[in-house]
């Protein structure tokens, strides 16, 4: 049984700023017919480039060395005309962000029909019938009514189904999915993965899906391939991988993924090397806890037998204890002094008005929320998009208008005004989702952090400078950072600066709105650990808003679950997770990355 896809010694070079940069190096991969493989890596690992290389969809100026054999045919040598015949028919591809990946000006029927007609010819009526059939197959309800709809008329999950339908139109034997669930809500993401798994079985199709989300791989894939800084570090059976990772990077990566009920998140010190400055020898060595001198001399050949193979001179022993599988010890219940009191908080957005239309009544985006928060407590707020969780954060921050009362330290915001209100408001600080957007691109880092200090009152320049240095140190950043601009720091560093800025105002409460969603897994771990550490030392409270249950459960003392603007359940973390009272909570928990025993399940039934 020959492989559907065989990649042999492939290197990909791109042109960046006039220079040639090798993004992917000595890449080898093999997928059998019907096999589902996860290609895993963080940003900059080269995984997306690998996927695009198979389809020969790389930007102009890219060069591919090596062989890419699809059913024996070398795609790397094929000309454009041949590739056009292969794309969509031999290999189908699904991209992330379906709203951008679909043409907003053409109907769904036209776009799916096009995929069919390009290879099979045929008239419009035939193509339309095929589109109808495919829409049904991917689980779109009432497909006949939706054929002439445009992409923006579908919800996110439905759009992704449309994309999948389009990729399958000509029944390819290999489907490549590039981060198909990134950006989707957890429940929807789960449905999409289940759809892909089902389609794989029904069509006997191989699937290569590219992702940074290890839990998805664990649940659905048979095999896994891990990339780091452009080279493969470990590959093989998924079961074996999750039971006994052999490569130190794999172990570190697994340790930094947030799972429900987990004790510790592991930091990976250091940063991913830039393509231009990759170390000779093992690329992970500078950050590896087990590194030895020999590791830096030449890139390690593969070691291992059965299970997985790892490109490491000193692969981890098979019988090691799994750091990430350590469950959380039950936390003692703490008593908190009250800090924040939210009473009957309701937020309504005004409907569209106009000269000829009256103000339309939309349902309130936040409806009658009541809860309290204690000093030093971390409250997690989870929900899907549209649940109102961000709105809640903004209302507490006084960024939007609301009905009801929010009291901090016994003072009602609605009862204050002017300077008194500004002073009270300063006690609640914020960390946003997009780290760089939250800073003025034309202000230096130092100015960004100094601003809350300066706004508080008259202070000397020397004091401000000293304080900025101190704060940078507290979040683990170099003092030289102060002279840089937001455009010149990484996402993780930017988020740390945002935290430093929040600290500069000496708040009593910090609201974090999806603080880690835009970051890589290992950066996320570092940030969460930093937050935990800061809370421990400073005794301020957090409101942590996220759609990622695992992240919230790692940090929060109590969790509030929001759905359609209402609190569905509110309880202490451990209790909520072990025995959820509401069906919705249970569904969210089931969709979250689970802490699984090392003999964990892989494919869903």
């Amino acid at each position, binding site marked *: 049984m020959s492989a559907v896809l065989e990649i042999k010694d492939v290197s990909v070079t791109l042109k960046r700023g006039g220079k040639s940069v090798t993004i992917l190096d000595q890449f080898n991969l093999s997928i059998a017919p019907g096999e589902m493989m996860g290609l895993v890596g963080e940003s900059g690992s080269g995984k997306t480039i690998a996927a695009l290389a198979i*389809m020969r*969809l790389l930007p102009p100026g890219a060069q591919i060395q090596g062989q890419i054999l699809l059913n024996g045919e070398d795609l790397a040598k094929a000309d454009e005309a041949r590739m*056009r*015949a*292969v*794309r*969509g*028919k031999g290999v*189908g*591809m699904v*991209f992330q*962000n379906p709203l*951008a*990946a*679909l*043409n*907003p*000006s*053409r109907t769904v029927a036209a776009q799916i029909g*096009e*995929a069919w007609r*390009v*290879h099979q010819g045929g008239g419009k009526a035939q193509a339309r019938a095929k589109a109808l059939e495919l829409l049904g197959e991917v689980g779109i309800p009432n497909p006949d009514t939706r054929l002439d709809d*445009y992409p*923006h008329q579908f919800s996110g999950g439905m759009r992704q189904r449309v*994309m999948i339908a*389009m*990729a399958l*139109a000509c029944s390819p034997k290999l489907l490549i999915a590039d981060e198909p669930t990134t950006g989707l809500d957890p429940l929807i993401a789960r449905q999409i993965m289940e759809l892909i798994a089902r389609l794989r079985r029904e069509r006997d199709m191989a699937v290569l899906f590219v992702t940074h989300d290890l839990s998805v791989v664990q649940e659905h894939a048979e095999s896994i391939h891990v990339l780091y800084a452009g080279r493969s570090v470990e590959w093989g059976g998924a079961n074996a991988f999750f039971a006994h990772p052999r490569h130190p990077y794999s172990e570190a990566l697994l340790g930094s993924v947030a799972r429900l009920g987990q004790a510790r998140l592991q930091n990976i010190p250091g940063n991913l090397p830039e393509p231009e400055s990759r170390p000779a020898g093992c690329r992970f060595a500078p950050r590896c806890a087990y590194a030895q001198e020999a590791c830096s001399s030449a890139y390690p050949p593969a070691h291992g037998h059965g299970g997985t193979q790892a490109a490491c001179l000193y692969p981890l022993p098979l019988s090691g204890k799994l750091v990430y599988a350590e469950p959380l010890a039950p936390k003692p219940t703490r008593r908190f002094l009250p800090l924040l009191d939210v009473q009957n908080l309701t937020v309504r957005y005004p409907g569209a008005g*106009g*000269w*000829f*239309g009256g103000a339309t009544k939309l349902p309130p985006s936040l409806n009658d929320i009541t809860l309290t928060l204690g000093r030093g407590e971390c409250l997690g707020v989870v929900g899907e998009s549209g649940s109102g969780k961000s709105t809640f954060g903004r209302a507490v921050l006084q960024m939007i208008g609301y009905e009801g009362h929010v009291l901090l330290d016994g003072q009602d915001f609605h009862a204050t005004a002017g300077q008194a209100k500004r002073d009270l408001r300063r006690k609640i600080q914020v960390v946003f989702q997009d780290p760089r957007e939250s800073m003025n691109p034309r202000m230096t880092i130092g100015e960004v952090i100094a601003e809350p200090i300066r706004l508080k009152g008259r202070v000397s320049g020397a004091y401000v400078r000293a304080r900025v240095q101190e704060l940078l140190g507290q979040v683990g950043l170099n003092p030289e950072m102060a002279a840089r601009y937001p455009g010149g720091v990484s996402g993780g560093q930017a988020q740390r600066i945002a935290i430093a800025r929040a600290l500069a105002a000496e708040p009593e409460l910090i609201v974090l709105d999806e603080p880690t969603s835009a970051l890589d897994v290992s950066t996320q771990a570092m940030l969460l650990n930093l937050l935990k550490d800061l809370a421990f030392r400073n005794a301020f409270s957090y409101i942590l808003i996220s759609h990622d249950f695992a992240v919230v459960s790692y940090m929060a003392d109590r969790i509030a679950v929001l759905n359609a603007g209402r609190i569905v359940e509110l309880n202490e973390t451990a209790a909520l997770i072990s025995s959820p009272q509401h069906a919705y909570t249970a569904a969210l928990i089931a969709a979250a990355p689970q802490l699984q025993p090392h003999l964990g399940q892989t494919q869903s039934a």
Partner: protein
Amino acid sequence: MTKMILRRLASSCLSLFILVALVFFMAHLTPGGPAYSILGQKATPDSVAQLNARLGLNQPLVKQFGVWLWHLLHGQLGYSYLLNRPVGQLLWVYERNTLVFYSVSIVLSTAVSILLGLVQGVWFGRWPAKLIGAFQLGFYALPPFFVAAMLILWFAVDVRWFPASGIIDLRDPHAGLASFAAHLVLPVITVSLLTVSALSRYFGEAVHEELGKDYVRTARAKGVSFPAILFKHVMRNALRPLVTILGLSFPYIFTGGVIVESVFNYPGLGWLMWRSALSQDYPILIAIVLIIGVLTVLGNLLADLVNGLLDPRASYE
């Protein structure tokens, strides 16, 4: 959709009304007034007062406005003091000439802009695009009167291919469409050069931007050929901003048109406006301002409508 159209119409009408009122009051409030220009050398305070009384210019301004509006609603655009004719009658011929001139220019410019923009977008960064870019920059900076002057020098004086002025050969009793067309050539080229340099740049940018979008990559991943991607996918999305820009650029076409008409002595609205400005013939001025305002507003509305049709998302706003 109809709601949106009605709303836009109402809003445009309001804008026009304010505009017209503004213009009217400004005209009649400035020192001097039409009486001075009519009487010219013979203006003495007495004769001016007499003329004012006869023309009804000494009535309260608001009443004058009311009278004027009343006439307007009855299709009368006022009476030219200097040319001694009702304005409406006068304007029609000039209006027709201008409409022909502009229509030809706009159609030609749009077609050429789309072509150039396509080339510029597809070959972005390579020499065809850079060449077009240089052309756009250069011609955008060329003043219309300079272009007109150069064209006249070359084509009308040096090689005598095209006439330098007028609209039709008055000396030839059998002059017909051909002569008409010949007289249009240089003016149309002048206006088009400028319009094309601006429009094609927008379109070129739009095409380039669309080509970089995700849905183009998806289409490639399906195996769609490049020409099909360009014409079935990209064009639809890139044309939309073009339509908006076109609607917005009517004022600029008029501006260029005035100068071009003056240089070539082409008897259109712009030319008439120029001469009326020189001779301070207020009724004509006001009437032309009104017509141009209406045309501009209609142009914008039309552009919005076409946009609404092209964009499936618009009907849901």
